[in-house]
């Protein structure tokens, strides 16, 4: 959610129950402004909160002028001091995908993962148990990256693409209409498109190249991994992800208010197919 409309956004996203306590809210308002100034970001988003056993991580993201450029992620333990996280590399992804369980809450905590590796010594080949240490910070980067790629969403029309390349916030976006808001196809993944080129030519002909340049939610696997609800009597549409429980996207139809927030344990719900 945009840091500028933080209070309203928190109020709108409160249907999922998890929010922020007043002191966190107050410290966020001030510290995010300073982050924006110091790092010279165009927009700062409050991404959410990852619950750990000992402490929680508060995550924010900074965007530059081009909305689809890779975002910079910052984390904080007390909503006042923010540290920049490195961008996710493939090595990090490979390493951290084996770690399971809750987050500890201590960024320097190291997970131990035992792997069997084949070691060649001379002519013999035998397997050795190698203990790999994975820092929690790395895991944090990985989880945030996964969640962003999988479930960060934007309503259709909120961003538009200029012929020169960069994506901009659409200033004439006035919100989705009520009938559009209930359809999954009116929401896009907030990331570089992956499946667009797989569409048939007929489908592509209907797309507006300045608005429809991202993947929509319609073809997410598994089907039914999004729950769309109208809250507050049709004045607020809330999408909750079932794949990453804790991600809530809200939008008030016919207004410019929208945003998403993740408050959860940072674990993927692998049991989703059983639960539907």
């Amino acid at each position, binding site marked *: 959610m945009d840091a500028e409309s933080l209070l309203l956004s928190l*109020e709108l996203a*409160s*249907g*999922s*129950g*998890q*929010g*922020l*306590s*007043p*002191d*966190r809210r107050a410290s966020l308002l001030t510290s995010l402004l300073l982050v924006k100034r110091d790092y010279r970001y165009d927009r700062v988003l409050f991404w959410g909160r990852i*619950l750990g*056993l*000992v402490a929680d991580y508060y995550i924010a993201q900074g965007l530059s002028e081009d909305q689809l450029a890779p975002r910079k992620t910052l984390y904080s333990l*007390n909503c006042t001091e923010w540290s920049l996280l490195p961008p996710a590399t493939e090595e990090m992804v490979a390493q951290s995908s084996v770690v*399971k*369980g*809750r987050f500890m809450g201590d960024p320097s905590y190291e997970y131990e993962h035992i792997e069997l590796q084949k070691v060649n010594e001379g002519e013999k080949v035998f397997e050795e148990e190698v203990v790999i240490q994975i820092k929690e910070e790395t895991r944090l980067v990985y989880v945030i990256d996964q969640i962003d790629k999988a479930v960060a969403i934007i309503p259709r029309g909120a961003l538009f693409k200029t012929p020169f390349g960069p994506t901009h916030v659409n*200033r*004439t976006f006035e919100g989705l*209409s*009520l*009938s559009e808001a209930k359809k999954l196809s009116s929401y896009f993944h907030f990331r570089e498109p992956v499946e667009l080129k797989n569409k048939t030519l007929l489908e592509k002909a209907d797309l507006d190249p300045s608005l429809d340049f991202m993947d929509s939610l319609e073809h997410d696997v598994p089907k*039914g991994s999004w*729950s769309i*609800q*109208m*809250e*507050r*009597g*049709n*004045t607020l549409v809330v999408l*909750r992800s*079932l794949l990453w*429980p804790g991600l809530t996207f809200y939008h008030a139809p016919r207004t410019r208010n929208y945003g998403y927030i993740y408050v*959860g*344990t940072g674990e993927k719900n*692998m*049991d989703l197919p*059983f*639960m*539907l």
Partner: protein
Amino acid sequence: MEESTSPKQEKENQELGEARRSWDVKTAASPQYSEPASFEPLEAKQGLETGRQSRSSRYWSPQSGARTSLGGSAGPETSSPAPLSPRESSSTPSPLAPAIQDLGAPPQSDRTTSVIPEAGTPDPDPLEQSSDKRESTHHTNQSDGNTFQQSQQPHLCGPRAVSYKNANQKELRFDVFQEEDSNSDYDLHQPATGGSEVAPSMLETTVQNAKAYLLKTSSKSGLNLYDHLSNMLTKILDERPENAVDIIENISQDVKMAHFSKKFDALQNENEMLPTYEIAEKQKALFLQVHLEGVDQELEDEIVENALPNVMESAFYFEQAGVGLGTDETYRIFLALKQLTDTHPIQRCRFWGKILGLEMNYIVAEVEFREGEDEEEVEEEDVDEERDNRESEADEDEEDELPKSLYKAPQAIPKEESRTGANKYVYFVCNEPGRPWVKLPPVTPAQIVIARKIKKFFTGRLDAPIISYPPFPGNESNYLRAQIARISAGTHVSPLGFYQFGEEEGEEEEEVEGSQNSFEENPDFEGIQVIDLVETLSNWVHHVQHILSQGRCNWFNSVQKNEEEEEEEDEEKEEPDYIEQEVGPPLLTPISEDLEIQNIPPWTTRLSSNLIPQYAIAVLQSNLWPGAYAFSNGKKFENFYIGWGHKYSPDNYTPPVPPPVYQEYPSGPEITEMDDPGVEEEQAFRAAQEAVLLAAEENEETEEDEDEEDDYD
């Protein structure tokens, strides 16, 4: 050339004014230039607009066609220097020579600006024509400059020429230009002053033509360009958006849409807003309740003491912990709870929490009825069970001939009585505050046992079926009730000492174990320091009974009942297996005794605020049931749940395996299959039989012989 058209649109007023002023200033001597200034700005605007449109090509190209007849170089060439010339040349031709160089040089920089006055074609056109004479005189001199202009002009004319081909009003334009041409012919041979008299009327006609063209309505949409542009500009001038030039297309679209949508307003809006209004009406009813219930005030006074909890206060504390539904939503829930307590005879009520679902959510209230209020439903269910039993027995009698299977389904464990164990409280749910509350049925042990084995999302509709393996006995309302029971048993905690056991009642009530079921508030509870509550878990205790794996809180020994029943039916019985009695942790055990989940402690304790510890409260989060919270400020405490309603497990869910196939009949000689004898065996058997027969015959013969011999004697 579209790029040039947009700056024109924006700066038209200013540019036009400036251009006019500059023209006036520079050509003060020439009367024909001051005259255009006297024209109304609106018409000038039109002139600009027309010029802006691709229609301007029609001005240009016919001019080129017409001007060639003048014997001069191509008209378009002159047109671009033409506007410049009014600015820069004086009335006398002689300064035109140095002006040529000026013309040559500035066009480079003024290219865009040259287009602007270019756009003002109707106005400069007559001007050009009147100044044509000058230009025609210096045309030849201007060859260099002209070639430069020429190179520009075809570029300018290109797209316009295309649209020119589609022009409908070509003829009209030609007429205009014929007129102008004739005038310019006239001008050529006349001094400048003579041309000025003709210019205004020509200008007027061209302007009027342009305006008429703009007012022409589109055959498709019924709009006309004049109105659309004026609406658009009005909107821009009213709203003054920043960087309007960047969003000009969107603004134009919006104006068009606004124009159309009025017709459909009545229909569309009604459909969309109906559900919103419905909910708003229902919630308004909530707010109005206070006034309607004036009659029952006495009754209310009695109940009000205990029944309605202070939801807002608990919500405030939970907000400190970062948990909550938002103030106005909580207030609506508060009012809905009040409605619940007013319509039902409720002793005590609590806001239990919110369970999220796929289509709709559930708001759950935990309720304790007053004595003797809710026994009717229990009887109905018993009747149903008896009927089912009788039917199954009847079926068995008919099929007596077949070998009876010795399978006996494990006897259903009867559910606990209301007000005890898992059914201690009654739960009401609603989807949204304002909607009617629905009572959930009491939970049976079988439902709890199976609920432990499945993991399903709630849809939000209470009558939705649960399709799972093992098959869940019931629909979503039963599953919901089972999960609520499990969550309550697992996560409802209170500070140590808040509740104490009832003094003598507990021991008398119990049957076998002697665990105590009842507890009551401790009037002497003095509160525990918040710091202590956070530091160790032993200061918190469960105050809801643990549910055994049987599905009940109080152990039910199904073995005993089996013995009683079997005496009635068959005498053959296998020995009843000795089932060990399950024991769970007794009530009011501290939560430090809770099992860890692999390496994770079952509870996480926090202070709500690190910055101001003296007023902070202790917050407990359950790691076993994510979404269960409890807070205490030392004296008060409250439990709350908000989440999807599932337990946390670090491993993935694996559905249980179906049981092995049951051996239906005991194997015995009657039903055991035997192999048919093979060919060799049959032959051997036959041979053996024949041998026996032969032997038997021989025996008979010898016997007969013996008999005959005896007879002879």
